[in-house]
C-alpha cells in the first residue's frame, strides 16, 4: 500500500520514503518475531507466517462450530458425571452395547472425513470432478453411519431398552441422537457443497464455501471421536 502511495504522489517522495524506511525496519522485526515464534512453537514448516494465516472457511461457520462444540461439551460432561454417579447402571448398559457397531461407525466417520479432506485438496488443484466424487464417497460413508446407528437403535428397542429404561439409556439416547441429527445436517451440507463443486462454483481461488462445509463435517467427526470412547470403550 505504501508503495502505491509513494508512486502515485511523487512530490511527497522524501517524507514518504523515510516512513517507508521505518516501516520496513519494523516489519523486519516483525518477520523475525514470526520466525522465532514458529521455531519455538515447533510449528509444521508448511506455511510461513503461520501465526497470522487465513482461517479456512467462513468465520460465521466457525462461530457456529464453536456453539456446537460448547453444547456437546456440556452433554459429554453431564453423561460423564452421571456415569460416575451411577457406575453400576452405566456399566451394565454399556456392556449391552455392541462395540463392533461403535467401531464400525468410528471407521465410517473417519473415512468420510478423509474423503472430504481429499475433495478439498482436489478442488485446490482445480480438479472439481474428482472432488465431486470424493464428496459423494464422503456422503456414502455418512450414510453407512446412519444405517448402522439405526440398526443399533432398533436392536436396543427390540430388547426393550428405550429412553425411559434407566439413567444410562436416557443419556445414551440423548447424546447419540443429538449427534445423529448433526450427521444428517452435515450430510445435507456436504450434498449442497458437492452440487456446487460439480457446477464448478468453487475454484482454487474461491473455495471458502467448500472449506466451511468440510470443517463442519470434520467437527461432526471430532465429536464422535469423543463419543466413541466415552460410550462404547470406557466401561
Amino acid at each position, binding site marked *: 500500500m505504501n508503495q502505491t502511495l509513494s508512486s502515485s504522489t511523487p512530490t511527497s517522495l522524501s517524507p514518504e520514503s523515510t516512513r517507508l524506511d521505518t516501516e520496513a525496519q519494523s516489519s523486519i522485526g516483525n518477520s523475525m518475531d514470526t520466525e522465532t515464534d514458529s521455531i519455538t512453537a515447533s510449528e509444521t514448516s508448511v506455511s510461513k507466517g503461520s501465526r497470522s494465516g487465513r482461517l479456512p472457511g467462513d468465520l460465521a461457520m466457525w462461530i457456529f462450530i464453536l456453539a456446537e462444540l460448547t453444547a456437546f461439551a456440556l452433554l459429554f460432561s453431564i453423561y460423564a458425571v452421571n456415569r460416575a454417579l451411577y457406575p453400576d447402571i452405566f456399566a451394565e448398559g454399556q456392556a449391552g452395547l455392541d462395540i463392533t457397531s461403535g467401531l464400525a461407525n468410528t471407521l465410517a466417520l*473417519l473415512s468420510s472425513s478423509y474423503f472430504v479432506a481429499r475433495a478439498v485438496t482436489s478442488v485446490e488443484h482445480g480438479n472439481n470432478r474428482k472432488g465431486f466424487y470424493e464428496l459423494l464417497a464422503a456422503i456414502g460413508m455418512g450414510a453407512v453411519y446412519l444405517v448402522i446407528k439405526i440398526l443399533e437403535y432398533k436392536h436396543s428397542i427390540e430388547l426393550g431398552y428405550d429412553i425411559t429404561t434407566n439413567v444410562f439409556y436416557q443419556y445414551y439416547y440423548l447424546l447419540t441422537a443429538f449427534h445423529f441429527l448433526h450427521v444428517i445436517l452435515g450430510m445435507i451440507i456436504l450434498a449442497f457443497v458437492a452440487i456446487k463443486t460439480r457446477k464448478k462454483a468453487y475454484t482454487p481461488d474461491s473455495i471458502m464455501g467448500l472449506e466451511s462445509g468440510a470443517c463442519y463435517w470434520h467437527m461432526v467427526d471430532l465429536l464422535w471421536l469423543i463419543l466413541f470412547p466415552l460410550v462404547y470403550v470406557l466401561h
Partner: protein
Amino acid sequence: MDNSNLNHAEIEPANSRSAKTLMPSYKVSTILWLLMLALTCASAYFAEQPSLTMNLVMAVLLITAIKAAMIVDYFMNLRGAPRFWRILLMTYVPAVSLVITATFAIDLS
C-alpha cells in the same frame, strides 16, 4: 543492509499474512487416515479388557486426543490458521478428556 533487502523484508510479511495454507497432499491425508483407523482399532481393543483402570482410561483418551489433533491440523487444515482458532480447536478434545478423566477418578479410586 542494502536497499533490496529492505524491500524484500517489507513485502514478505504482507504476502505471508494473506497466504493460504494449502490442504495436505493426498499422500499425507491417506497416511493420517490409516493411522487414525489403526488407533481406533487399538482403543476398541482396550474395551475388551476385563477391568477398567485409570491407566486404561488415560490411554484411551490420549489416543482420542492424538486423532483429534490430526483432524484439526490436517483435515480441518488449521495448522496455518490464526493462533486463536487453532489453539481453541486443539485444546477442545484434551479439555473434555480431562473432565471425563476426572469423573473416572471419582469412582475408580
